[in-house]
């Protein structure tokens, strides 16, 4: 069964098995995408952004998964929370950009364009402070070990791990504040 398979992949991932964890996220992506497509029918261009934001949230909050709990309930609660958050943010910005003048379309188009650029995670990562950006760059993008990253940055190994953790949390906060 799908639930059982994903659950066992996640539990192996939580134990530090990166390959299982990668499969978990990758198989989950398909479900998240269809979950969001159905609910964001009017905002199709938002779907992939929110899929990525959701993956980040699930990753950042993975320590809140209780192994005795159905995985579906956990993922759905996170997805629903993030979806509501997105719609709330949208309605706030739409409220600001709702003047009845002729330039409305022009502004809207420019806004959509900026939103695309702002959503580029690679660019957002570059804006993090060095003590977060470099550990993520070395370990998560280049695939170095934590020990290597520590040597290259002159940071301690635990500082590298903390940098990755805080960096990804800061990234989520940034997405939230600009979207």
């Amino acid at each position, binding site marked *: 069964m799908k639930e059982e398979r994903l659950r066992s992949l996640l539990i192996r*991932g*939580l*134990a*530090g098995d*990166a*390959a299982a*964890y*990668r499969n978990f*996220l*990758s198989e989950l*992506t398909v479900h998240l995408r269809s979950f969001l497509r159905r609910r964001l029918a009017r905002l199709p261009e938002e779907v*992939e952004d929110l*899929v*990525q934001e959701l*993956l*980040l*949230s699930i*990753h*950042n*909050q*993975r*320590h*809140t*998964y*209780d*192994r005795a*709990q*159905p995985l579906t*309930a*956990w*993922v*759905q*609660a*996170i997805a*629903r*929370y993030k979806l509501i*958050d997105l719609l709330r943010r949208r309605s706030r910005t739409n409220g600001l950009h709702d003047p009845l003048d002729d330039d409305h379309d022009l502004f809207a188009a420019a806004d959509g364009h900026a939103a695309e650029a702002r959503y*580029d*995670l*690679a660019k957002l990562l570059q804006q993090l402070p060095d003590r977060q950006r470099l550990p*993520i760059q070395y*370990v*998560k*993008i280049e*695939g*170095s*070990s*934590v020990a290597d990253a520590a040597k290259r940055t002159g940071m301690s190994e635990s500082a590298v*791990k903390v940098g990755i953790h805080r960096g*990804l949390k800061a990234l*989520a906060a940034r997405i*939230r504040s600009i979207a």
Partner: protein
Amino acid sequence: MKTEDWVSLLAAGVEPIDAKRTARRQLLAIIVGLLGALALTGGILRLNPALSHAVMEPMFWVREAYCAALALLGFAAVARLARPGIRLGFVPAGIGTVVLVMWIFAAAVLLTAPAQNRSHLFFGTTAGVCPFLIAMVAGPLLISFLWVLRDLAPTRLRLAGAAAGFAAGSLGALVYSLHCPELAAPFFGTWYLLGMLIPTSLGAWLGPRLVRW
């Protein structure tokens, strides 16, 4: 960035999660919050000088059990609401039952007492300050329980904040009782509960502001 690449990035070099970390942090939050509440009670309010006599009274222990039961239920609510997809379960009914049992008991005490004593049983000598002092003592606990929520992932922020406030209020009331001389059920069935509801409302207000993720 393509979603596929993003998945690879997130999974790369992933560290094992310590399954006991959350429990350890919750324990730490309770201890630090309790120390703060004890410092306020012992330092600013002073312990009840008649405490050594009061502990001989059965009503002393009824009061402590009342506060402790609500604190346990409150903390169970915090721990559940802090995790996505976990339901509150028995907690609301548990809190309702404890409060209801105390009110029935308090009503019985009032009805069986001589009429001229009833006002004192209800108001004691400290009703005017009791809820506010409980709210003050609960302050450090509220901060530490909100810190617990921030580390986890509550999806119902207002309710989770209220639960943190209720847990802080009831545990705060338990600590405050070391100062408080009142031992009548109508008193603590009313004024203690009001004291717990002050941090509960504050928590409900702070939740959506402080624990978004």
